[in-house]
């Protein structure tokens, strides 16, 4: 009997290049489960990633993917959604990719608010390039480049996303696949850009923020009102333990629904073609 994939999104056996024990495996399981439970059609699903260990994730799923440049997943994903709003678009990449190289797109994609989900594998390190500090690395984090320990204030993606009025902001931890799945499901269901920062232990290069460390330094938000931006910000500043869960959620129009082309007609761009006759007429009317 041929080997059968358990999950619709699990491709035939692939060689997964992650290290044994890496948090990425759990994240992958959580994502596949979320997609299954939401009954997303793999043929309508596009994963967009940059470059890094996390960014290899789409290669290990059954879906369309655009595995582009380091740091540039957000503009690609935004444009895909704007060109074809019928697709489910998920960005999946690393903390370095999205908050470091891609920081400017993080700011402005949130302002645009396309209906996409942004999953950030936050291992607080650059994995693929063998262990330099990432924007979320802690103060004093030592690496072969940060030989004296990183002196930079760690980037707080949750607080920043709330400040930018991101319409959905959450944090998860791969140590809890079930909850991670639930949070991802909420994020996908949310209409607008959903930021999901996911603590993910890197067993090879981060000997500080280990599975155990994350376990000991996180807790789930309770009695939290995600519609309250100030409260969300307060919670976002909490550290050790770091809250997990949905910090903030707001209703904001998406960039694609505000495009004049889609106001009266949701047909994706690829099914529309400009009429050359109309163009000729337009030129004749306006340029003579």
């Amino acid at each position: 009997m041929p080997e059968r994939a358990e999950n619709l999104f699990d491709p035939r056996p692939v060689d997964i290049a992650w290290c044994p024990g890496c948090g990425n495996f759990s994240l992958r399981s959580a994502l596949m489960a979320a997609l299954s439970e939401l009954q997303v059609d793999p043929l309508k699903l596009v994963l967009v990633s940059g470059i890094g260990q996390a960014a290899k994730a789409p290669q290990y799923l059954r879906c369309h993917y655009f595995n582009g440049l380091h740091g540039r997943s957000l503009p690609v994903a935004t444009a895909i959604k704007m060109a074809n709003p019928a697709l489910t678009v998920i960005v999946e990449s690393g903390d370095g990719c999205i908050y470091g190289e891609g920081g400017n797109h993080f700011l402005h994609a949130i302002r645009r608010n396309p209906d996409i989900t942004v999953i950030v594998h936050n291992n607080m390190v650059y994995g693929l390039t063998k262990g330099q500090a990432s924007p979320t690395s802690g103060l004093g984090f030592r690496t072969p480049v940060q030989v004296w320990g990183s002196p930079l204030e760690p980037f707080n993606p949750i607080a920043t996303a709330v400040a930018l009025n991101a319409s959905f902001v959450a944090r998860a931890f791969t140590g809890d696949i079930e909850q991670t799945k639930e949070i991802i499901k909420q994020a996908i269901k949310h209409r607008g850009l959903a930021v999901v920062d996911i603590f993910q232990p890197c067993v090879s290069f981060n000997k500080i923020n280990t599975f155990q460390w994350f376990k000991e330094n996180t807790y789930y938000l309770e009695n939290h009102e995600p519609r309250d931006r100030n409260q969300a910000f307060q919670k976002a500043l909490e550290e050790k333990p770091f809250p997990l869960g949905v910090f903030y959620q707001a209703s904001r129009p998406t960039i694609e629904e505000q495009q004049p082309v889609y106001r009266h007609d949701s047909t994706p761009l690829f099914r529309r073609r400009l009429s050359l006759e109309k163009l000729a007429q337009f030129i004749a009317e306006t340029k003579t």
Partner: protein
Amino acid sequence: MKDFCVVVAGEAGQGIQTVENLLPLILKRSGFHVFSYKEYMSRVRGGSNSTLIRVSEEPGSAFRRSIDLLVLLSDDIKHAERLASRLSNQSVILANEAIPLPEACCQAPLLTWPINHLAIKAGHKIYANTVACGIICGLVGVNLPVSRQVVEEYFASKEEKIRRQNSLAFELGYQYAEQNKQLFPLRIALSPKEDVKARFLLSGAEAVALGALAGGCNFVSSYPMSPSTGVLVSLASYSRHFDLVVEQAEDEISAVNMALGAWYAGARAMVTTSGGGFALMVEALSLAGMIESPLVVHLGQRPGPATGLPTRTEQADLFFSLYSGHGEFPRVILAPGNIEQAFYLTHRAFYLADKYQVPVIILTDQYLLDSLKDVAALEFPEKIEDFFAPTEADYLRYKITPSGLSPRGIPGLGRGFVCLDSDEHDESGRIIEDPLLREKMVQKRLAKGKLVKKEALPPELIGRDDARFLVLSFGSTRDVIGEALTDLPSVALLHYAQLAPFLPPPWQLLSRARRIIVIEGNATGQLRQLLRAEAGLGSAIPLIPLNKYDGLPFSVEEVREALKKIIEEESHA
């Protein structure tokens, strides 16, 4: 005088833009061929700007240096000073009052007509620009009812008072000129032609934008940058009439990555930028090469390096566009020679990008983009063809085929998965490191370069095919050189509107030429070097360079003079 060249100068903010927009329209609608070009500074107010308007009985004008009439909207002498070298005793300066002209301009008679007075009479000093339009129209003798209509149309969106006062200002200027024509030293004897009225009046920027629409463009993501912003603005205004997503990105990196995302999802996307913005796009250009995505980049050149002269012109980004991006992949570079070609080559860019899954760069410059002229007809594509296709379940995005081209699928159309990877990949789009497969994939990508070469445009010959003097040029210099050649029957122009893939000049032409001159708007002679590298030119017959890099376009006169000198030297040799 069958060719009248008027320049209106003043400070930024004095309404030269109105002159620039209004006058050509009136002139064309009245049956005159018209060409205009603006010279403006990188500032919003003050400084010294000017617009040149050539009115002629012949179509297809280009930049002329020598000014017949200089109209000063300001009494600051800096404007005349800046333009002094383009004035002669054949020129006339028209100003509001007797200003102390710089010595260099003294040959040209100064005429003082009460521009400001008329403006105030119409309602306010700020209408001096409209008065000037009226005066020029009066001097040329355009049809008054037509003019009135254009003026009304032009100000139609303004409030009633402004509309009325502008109309009056125009009228007063027109009348004054008519009444005082006999005092005007130049005889402008242009007769209008009926067929001009039906021609299209287009700027280079509009031609690129309309060409994009004709290529099926329905997605533009860009970041403003002179001189390319005009294309973005034009497309934005067309989005009122056509299905077009217009997105101003946070930076050029985002703009170009958006364009790639849009193509992936089945849109036809373009970005428009200038050198500095293009510099930020070259990583993604390389990405387009790797993922075999179509991409159309409009690159409007301006003088560099760095910020350089933001609102001036140059042709110094040829090599940059040819060789930018890491790694090796085929690309197409089109460099329109004039406004008609800007339209044609822009829709061609979409066709080539889509068909061959390669990035296409449209290389223009400030001179071309900020020029305006009337054109007879535009060459449309037969149809807008989409080259993507529905996928089967066993779809492989990078299927190795004899031609190198793999059918391009898009997500959501068909039963297959469309997987792109910026890493080296196998046929399915999954990351690999196998040397043999790598080699095949390199060959596959480069093979497309040979395919697209088959559709490359050969250089265009303007003039006799046995000319003793052969000029080579590319891009926006076409019509300036073309006009310079009309007096010089022994010279022909071989003009390149496509630089990559590059077709060498026909050897017959080369072998008949005694002198080969390369004219280009840069300092280092990039076309010259390309001709050496790609066609081995320059070893047997030396290539005589004519370069310009002061921020201004070549003028018909300077090209003509330079060529005459070369002809003369040759006859003595």
